[in-house]
């Protein structure tokens, strides 16, 4: 399967433009329409090595951008991705063919999180020998150690990483950056390029008195300890402080571990919560209480253990630089929540101690690392950094995007090419050329992923899967296909590169083609002759079927071609 490089396809549908990894959404949704689920996963894997993971926990910027929102509701892109990835896995693990090593330059990647693994994946596909170094016992980073099992199963992560390993990526676990290896030692070992993707591992501190009391545990440490299988005694009444996904994860985990009452304290209101609305709903269903507009002032202890959190009420002021309204404390509004466990989940910061000092930026207020946002170069040549470590805590899909950018930069750096040429990713044009919204009918969502797997017998399970598949196809048909032909190569023999061609000597300018064309690719030009915009044309051939003067014909599946097929069929 080949695909035009991104820079040639200047116009992208909004879903693909919004995705930091630019996954070809339209293509795989089209494949799902045709019931080609395995091919759909292949298309996802061209841009994203984690279809099953992102199908579960991605915050789906694609759905937010979906043009269908203007009409009814976005296409359930994430749910579809999850389904196709799950179907593929259920059929047995897909073993990728190792890519032959085309180049000899070794590349070292530090950190086996989403950014590091994606960079490794992309570089291995290009043919570089890649080694990934990971401090923990298992690769996966936050995907493995911070997202609880009920949201993202460990075997899913292991499965996706196994695919990356199949390609020939070497992953060395239990190697700590800054201790076992350094940039100098890696260079001495013959690594020509280094990508630092260590993420943000340390939970941010509350900075209130009483933080060292027994029973205060940071959300990241809490989740990591559980993922490692350590025994943690959860209190009866737990307060989680923060409003992000980590806070929700920690609260739900605590509840599932047996806490009687779990509350989330957040200093802004519900609208400003960075957590996914869907996750918040699930947390509410689990019986977790939310207290908004409260911020901890101090943690009160008794005999060295947490007894209560004292909080201040807040009100919202002017929007700050993140666009959210700044909380302002209300004086003398102190009140207490009786708890025996406090889990701060305020976000994470980079462990600056492991990084070489020359990489750190001098400006302490800005991001900790000095990294070119486009090429991800640091101020040491041959050393790149990206992902959370450069941007602060973000999402998996953004890390994947950074990994891909790093891979391109490293490839160009090693091949002595210009790192900046044609890298105008920001300039990607977004298009929706649904010609006429009045033509479209409203269709509500037809597929929602099941929250819990039903317990079914073998026969039932088969029928259930068939039902899900059909629903998914039905849902995929809601896609408007805003972009030009997405090159899914769904049916190579038919649609690949089929374009309408106008015979200008025949055209009389009746404008029927412009009326017929569903994507508005045919227009009359200043000469009064129909002109096909090749960028938009999807090759459906509706114009060729209706042109009154038969001035439009298709390049591939022309009327003559169909006639030949009819005659061949007759002779059979």
């Amino acid at each position, binding site marked *: 399967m080949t695909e035009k490089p991104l820079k040639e396809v200047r116009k992208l549908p909004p879903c693909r433009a919004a995705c930091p990894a630019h996954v070809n959404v339209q293509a795989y949704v*089209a494949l799902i*329409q*045709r*019931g*080609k689920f395995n091919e759909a996963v292949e298309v996802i894997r061209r841009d994203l090595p984690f279809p099953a993971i992102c199908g579960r926990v991605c915050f789906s910027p694609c759905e937010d951008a979906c043009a269908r929102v203007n009409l009814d509701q976005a296409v359930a892109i994430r749910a579809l991705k999850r389904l196709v990835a799950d179907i593929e896995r259920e059929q047995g693990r897909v073993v990728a063919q190792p890519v032959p090593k085309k180049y000899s330059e070794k590349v070292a990647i530090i950190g086996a999180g989403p950014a590091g693994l994606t960079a490794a994946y992309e570089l291995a596909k290009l043919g570089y020998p890649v080694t990934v170094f990971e401090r923990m016992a298992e690769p996966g980073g936050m995907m493995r150690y911070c997202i609880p099992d009920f949201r993202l199963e460990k075997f899913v992560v292991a499965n996706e990483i196994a695919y990356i390993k199949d390609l020939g990526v070497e992953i060395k676990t239990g190697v700590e950056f800054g201790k076992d290896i350094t940039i100098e030692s890696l260079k001495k070992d013959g690594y020509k390029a280094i990508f630092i993707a260590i993420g943000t591992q340390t939970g941010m501190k509350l900075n209130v008195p009483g933080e060292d009391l027994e029973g205060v545990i940071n959300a990241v440490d809490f989740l990591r300890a559980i993922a490692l299988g350590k025994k943690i005694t959860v209190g009866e009444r737990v307060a989680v402080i923060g409003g992000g996904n980590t806070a929700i994860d920690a609260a739900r985990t605590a509840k599932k571990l047996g806490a009687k009452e779990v509350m989330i304290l957040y200093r802004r209101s519900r609208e400003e919560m960075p957590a996914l609305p869907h996750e918040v709903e699930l947390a509410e269903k689990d019986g977790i209480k939310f207290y908004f507009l409260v911020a901890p002032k101090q943690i009160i202890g008794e005999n060295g253990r947490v007894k209560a959190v004292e909080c201040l009420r807040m009100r919202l002021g002017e929007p700050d630089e993140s666009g959210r309204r700044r909380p302002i404390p209300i004086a003398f509004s102190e009140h207490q929540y009786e708890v025996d466990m406090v889990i701060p989940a305020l976000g994470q910061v980079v462990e600056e101690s492991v990084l070489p000092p020359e990489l750190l930026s001098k400006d302490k207020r800005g991001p900790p690392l000095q990294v070119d946002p486009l090429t991800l170069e640091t101020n040491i040549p041959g050393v790149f950094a990206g992902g959370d470590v450069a941007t602060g805590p973000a999402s998996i899909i953004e890390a994947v995007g950074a990994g891909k950018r790093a891979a391109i930069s490293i490839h160009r750096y090693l091949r002595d090419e210009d790192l900046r040429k044609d890298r105008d990713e920001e300039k990607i044009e977004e298009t929706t050329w*649904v*010609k006429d919204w*009045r*033509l*479209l*009918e409203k*269709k509500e969502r037809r597929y929602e992923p099941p929250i819990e797997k039903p317990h079914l017998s073998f026969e039932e399970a088969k029928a259930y899967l068939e039902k899900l*598949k*059909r*629903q998914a*196809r*039905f849902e995929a*048909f809601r896609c*408007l*296909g805003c972009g030009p032909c997405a090159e899914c190569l*769904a*049916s190579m023999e*038919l*649609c690949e590169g*089929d374009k309408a061609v106008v015979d200008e000597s025949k055209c*009389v300018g*009746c404008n*029927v*083609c412009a*009326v*017929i064309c*569903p*994507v508005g690719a045919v227009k009359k030009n200043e000469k009064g002759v129909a002109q096909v915009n090749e960028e938009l044309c*999807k*090759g*459906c*051939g*509706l114009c*060729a*079927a*209706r*042109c*009154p*003067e*038969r001035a439009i014909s298709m390049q591939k*599946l022309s*009327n003559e071609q*169909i*006639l030949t*097929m*009819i*005659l061949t*069929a*007759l002779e*059979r």
Partner: protein
Amino acid sequence: MSQDSHPPRIVCFMCNWAFCEEEMRIPYNVDVIRVMCIGRMDPALVLETFIKGFEGVMLVGCKPPDCHFVDGNLHAERAVKMLKKLLALAGLEPERLKLLLVAPLEERAFSHYAKEFSEEIWRLGNSPLKKDEFIANLTAAKEAASAFRLRVLLGREEELTEFMNAYGEKIPEEEFDALLDDVVKAEYIRYKIHYLTRIKPRSVKELAQILGLKPFAVLRHITNMRRKGMIALDRVEGYTPLYKALEVR
């Protein structure tokens, strides 16, 4: 009527997005030709298929509102409506053409529909027309379907009936249907005349007899055709003018 022991030859034009997940089981008298969208089927091509010798044509597309190309299936519906009118005029049973729109959730397999249609065609038997008559009528229908007037009307139907025309009017569907009826009939007769006079020059009276029309109606069509450069006076035999078809572009 059929004592024919051969099952009818059927061709099935199928949308790329219909019945695409499973291996299709196709009865041996049916041929499947995949097209990008069922709306892509040129009406003239469908008639051409009949001329070439197929006894039934099935068009398979997606059920509205689902279409990969927004409204290609609706275009197909309009084309089939017109084609059935043309087939009826040509004296062939309109049932020989079938448009099947299936949802992606279709329970039944393609073979089920194909068999059903086969049996239907088998029951209809051979075409009621004689060989040369069949060719003449179907060619006239095909040429009418390839000509400007019908195609423009077909192409603009959606615009005229659902939105507004250039004068800000919206044509009700029934009115459009009546209009289409008239145009289809007129176009069919003109192209039949064209076909007949192509073989040899004929008089109005002779044409009227073959077409089963009043001579003045034929003359009106001929006047119209002369204006369009489709036909010309060949010679006058006695007092009877004979007309001959001209090459049309």
